[in-house]
């Protein structure tokens, strides 16, 4: 089976929608360098975001995620996990 092609923009749209609609974050304060803690995402809120992202893209975040500080960090790791998954499936 060929992997579903997901672009960086697809990931970005999904995560930003999640932040705006599920977490009620003001769209005006969102930018890639936004620190998740500073826009009101606490550690449990972050777990919920990961839960939704994992579900949407069928990926698994690592157990440790201290490195994910900004929105961009979150988008990067999501995209990389999708690439890794697709590599595994095609190899």
């Amino acid at each position, binding site marked *: 089976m060929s992997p579903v092609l997901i672009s960086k923009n697809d990931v970005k749209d999904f995560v930003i929608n999640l932040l705006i609609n*599920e*977490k*009620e974050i003001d769209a005006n304060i969102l930018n890639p360098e936004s620190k998740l803690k500073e826009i009101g995402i606490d550690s*449990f809120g972050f777990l*919920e975001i990961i*839960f939704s992202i*994992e579900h949407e893209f069928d990926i698994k975040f690592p157990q440790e995620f201290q490195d994910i500080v900004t929105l961009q960090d979150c988008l990067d790791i999501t995209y990389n996990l999708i690439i890794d998954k697709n590599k595994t499936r095609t190899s």
Partner: protein
Amino acid sequence: MHCRRIVITGMGVVSPLGNTPEALAQNIFSGKSGIQRFEGAFVDKLICKVAAQAKFDPADYFVKKSDYAILDRIGQMALYASIEATKDANLPLKQQQNAGVYIGTGMGGILSVEEGYETLFKKGENRLKPYTVLMCMYNSAASAIATHFEFSGPNLTFSTACSSSAIAIGQAYKDIKLGDINYALAGGTDAILAYASIKSWESIRTLADEDPDDVSASCKPFSADRSGLVIGEGAAMLVLEELEHAQSRGAPIYAEIVGYGTANDFKHVAIPSVEGQAATMQAAIKNSGLAPDAIQYINAHGTGTKFNDETETEAIKQIFGKHAYQLAVSSTKSMHGHLMGAAGALEAMITVQSLLRNELPPTINLNNPDPKCDLNYVPNQSQKIENYRYAMSNSFAFGGTGASLIFKKVE
């Protein structure tokens, strides 16, 4: 020692008869039933398709989704009722006070438990959403309330089945009386209309048969044709406050709590005994220092099961003697169903409203007298009462823990 007196200064409710104390009172005292055909995905699989559901969509009652999305239905209902009770009492919404939260719940976050099992066992997924633990735990509602109001005092949850919230109110009353705190939010919440929990109630054959002519008349406490209880859901919260504290800030005062007693009905885990129920009422009367004939009205546990109603009638006769035939007894469960862990608090609220209105709430659907139930049950219509001062509310439970509360009209 100066004797601290405890009064009720705020009330909030989510119930099958409305989500304000005013709507509740209007329905209760006009004898209206909130019991109807159960609305749920699995209704076809139920033997008993009757329930008293609360019309409560949290999206209509909270400003933001994040205010309620991480709460089980018990937490949503109890938090909303607490916010309303706090407004009613003219207390600030963020308090940072040494105040307490005392909540009773019989089955905790059972809807969330069921949702979790459905995800794993039925849908075959292999993980659960992050808030699952915090939604299932029994203290989820109390914690949501204490966190919301920033209370630093006792944050306590009581689970004694159907007496849970009467116990919660009683224990709050004791702690305020002792001087540990000056006020508390106390009450109960339960939302057990999940498939597995209804099935488990069906299996002990205590649920009412559906009335063939009128679904809303299916619960018939003290009537010879009673066939069981109807499961309800909701939350009822009271602000309990030390009298001088309430007076100093000009709070509304709805009634005084003057007695609380609890006793264990140890003979059987589920079959009530006259001795156990009588001991509970006796404990409350002793605590109040009143003579038994001071009690003018009893809001009965009155589930509508054969066993409870005749046992409770006999226990009332044992405690009150001849006065049992002078006082009035009613079961408002005939209208709002059995709110399980929230029942005691809802019925305490109705008892307070009874004192405020000089009016006794009826037992509806009482059309066939049972010779074993021969007291004044305020059949079918409310009754006005003069020189009204003291009323009692009874709660009994599977497991044995009984609780009676005695309220005094504000002079």
